[in-house]
C-alpha cells in the first residue's frame, strides 16, 4: 500500500508550519523525515495519520492493505502512550476491542504480537514495572497487533538511553524488513535515519518545506558492513550540512504552542 502526501500548506492560526510537501511512500519503503526543531515533522506525521487536518491539501492511500489489516496507518509514539492501568497484554489488545473478532483470533493476535516483540513473559506486567525500552516494545506490539500497512513513527527511540536505542533500533529494522511494512520515521537523529531509511526527506526551518530528498543506496542489511561506513558517513555529513545553519537559528526561536 502506497501513501501519497500532498500537503499544500498547514498553519496554526497565523503561524504557517508546513508548505508544499509532496512525498510518495511506496509499499514496503521506509522514509525518514528530518529537519530542525519546530519545522513541522510531527505535525506532518499527524496529518499523514489523520489525527490532524491539513489546512490545505490531502493524504491518499493507494493499493490494498495486507490481509487481516485492521488499521492501515498505525502510529508508534515517542512517549509510548500506554494506559498505565492496563497490563502489557491489555494494552496490546486495546486496538482490537472495538473490532468484532472472535476471542480466539483476538488472543492469537495478541500472543503473536507479544512474541514478535519479546514480551511474552511480561504479558501481565503493568507499564510502571517496565523500562523505557520495554515500554516502547509494548507500543510496537500494540501497532503490530492490527497488522498495519504503514507505520508512522514519531521519534520512537528518542526517549530511550543510547544503549537501549541501539538494541531496539536493530529489532525495529529487523521487524520492518521481515514484515515488509512501510514506515515514515520522524527523527532528529541522523544515525537512526541512515540506519533505517531508504530515503531521507530533509525539511527546512519553519515553515517546513522539502529541502532535499536523499536516497541511501545501500540495503539496510549491509549498512553495518565496513564497506558502507564511509558512504554513510558522507551521507551523514551531507544531511548535517543541509540543516546545520537552520538548526542553529531554530534553536534560538520562541516556541509557539
Amino acid at each position: 500500500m502506497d501513501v501519497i502526501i500532498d500537503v499544500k500548506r498547514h498553519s496554526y492560526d497565523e503561524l504557517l508550519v508546513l508548505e508544499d510537501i509532496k512525498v510518495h511512500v511506496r509499499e514496503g519503503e521506509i522514509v525518514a523525515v528530518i529537519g530542525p526543531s519546530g519545522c513541522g515533522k510531527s505535525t506532518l506525521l499527524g496529518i499523514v495519520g489523520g489525527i490532524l487536518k491539513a489546512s490545505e491539501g490531502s493524504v491518499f492511500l493507494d493499493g490494498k492493505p495486507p490481509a487481516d489489516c485492521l488499521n492501515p496507518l498505525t502510529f508508534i509514539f515517542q512517549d509510548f502512550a500506554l494506559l498505565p492501568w492496563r497490563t502489557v497484554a491489555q494494552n496490546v489488545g486495546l486496538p482490537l476491542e472495538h473490532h468484532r473478532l472472535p476471542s480466539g483470533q483476538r488472543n492469537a493476535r495478541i500472543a503473536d504480537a507479544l512474541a514478535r516483540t519479546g514480551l511474552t513473559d511480561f504479558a501481565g506486567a503493568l507499564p510502571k514495572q517496565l523500562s523505557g525500552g520495554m515500554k516502547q516494545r509494548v507500543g510496537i506490539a500494540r501497532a503490530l497487533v492490527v497488522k498495519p500497512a504503514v507505520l508512522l513513527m514519531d521519534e520512537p527511540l528518542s526517549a530511550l538511553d543510547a544503549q537501549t536505542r541501539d538494541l531496539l533500533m536493530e529489532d525495529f529494522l529487523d521487524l520492518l524488513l521481515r514484515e515488509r511494512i512501510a514506515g515514515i520515521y520522524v527523527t532528529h537523529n541522523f544515525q537512526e535515519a541512515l540506519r533505517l531509511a531508504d530515503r531521507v526527506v530533509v525539511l527546512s526551518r519553519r515553515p517546513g518545506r522539502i529541502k532535499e530528498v536523499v536516497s541511501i543506496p545501500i540495503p539496510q542489511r549491509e549498512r553495518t558492513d565496513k564497506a558502507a561506513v564511509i558512504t554513510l558517513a558522507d551521507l551523514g555529513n551531507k544531511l548535517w550540512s543541509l540543516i546545520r545553519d537552520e538548526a542553529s537559528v531554530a534553536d534560538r526561536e520562541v516556541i509557539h504552542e
Partner: protein
Amino acid sequence: MSEIAASGPSVLPSSGSPQRREVEFRGGGFMAVPQPLYSWVAFAGIIALWQVSISAGWIDPVFLPSPASICIALWQLVVSGDLWIHMSASLSRIGTGWFIGTGLGLAIGVAMGLNSSARAVGMPLVSAIYPVPKIALLPLLILWLGIGETPKVVTIASGVFFPTIIATLAGVDAVPRNLIRMAQSFNMPTSGIIWKIMMPSALPGILSGFRISVSTALILVVAAEMIGAQYGIGAFLLTAGNLMQSDDLMAGVVILSILGLSIGAAITVFERIFLRWR
C-alpha cells in the same frame, strides 16, 4: 597495527598530601520519614495529660470532660441503643444525599469536560453557586420541601454536587491528550475513548473529589440536623449542648471523628483497589 593497552585496577595515591581532605556530606533531610511510634506516643500522651488535668482539678469537667467520662458516655450510648438510632438517621441522610449529589455531579462534570457548550453554560453557574454555604439554603429548602427528610438530603446533595463537578471536570481535563490521540489513531469510537481512556484516567481526580465531598456531607448532616431533626448525631449534639451534658457532647464529637476516619479509610481502600496501577 595499533593495540589497546590493557588496563588493570585503578590505584589511589597515598594519603601523604597535607591538602587531602574528605568531602563532607551535604545532602539529606527535607524528606518525610514515617514515624508511626511518635504518632501513637503523642496521641497517648495528650490523652494522659488531659485525664491528669481533670483528675487533679486543673480543669473544670463541665467545660472539658475527662477522657474516662467520655468513654463512659460512649458506652452508655452503645448499651442504650441510642447510638444506633442517631447513627442510622445520620448515615441514611449522608448516604442518600451523597449518592444523589455525587451521581449528578459526576454526570454533569463529565458532560462539561467533554462538551464545550455544556462547559460554557455550566461553568459560570458552578462558579457562582459553589462558594455559597449550602446550609444557608436549608431554610429555603424547608420552605419549598417541608420539614421532613427531603430538605436535609437535598442540602447534603447540593453540598456534594459542586465539589464533585469541579473534581470530575479537573480529572477529565487532566487526561493526557496523547492517550486520546493514540485511541483515535486506532479508530476507537467516542464511547470507547470515554469509557476506556478518559474515565479510568480521570479516576484519581474523581476519588480525590470524593474525599472532599464526604467531609462536606458530614459537616452538612450535622448542621442540618441541628436546625431541624429529632434523631441524628447533629440533633444529639445540640440536645447535649443545651443540657450542658458535655460528656455526651464530646462523645458525639468522638463519634463524628470515628465516622470521618472510617469513611476516609474506606476511600483509601477503594483507591488501593482501583488505583493500584499508580
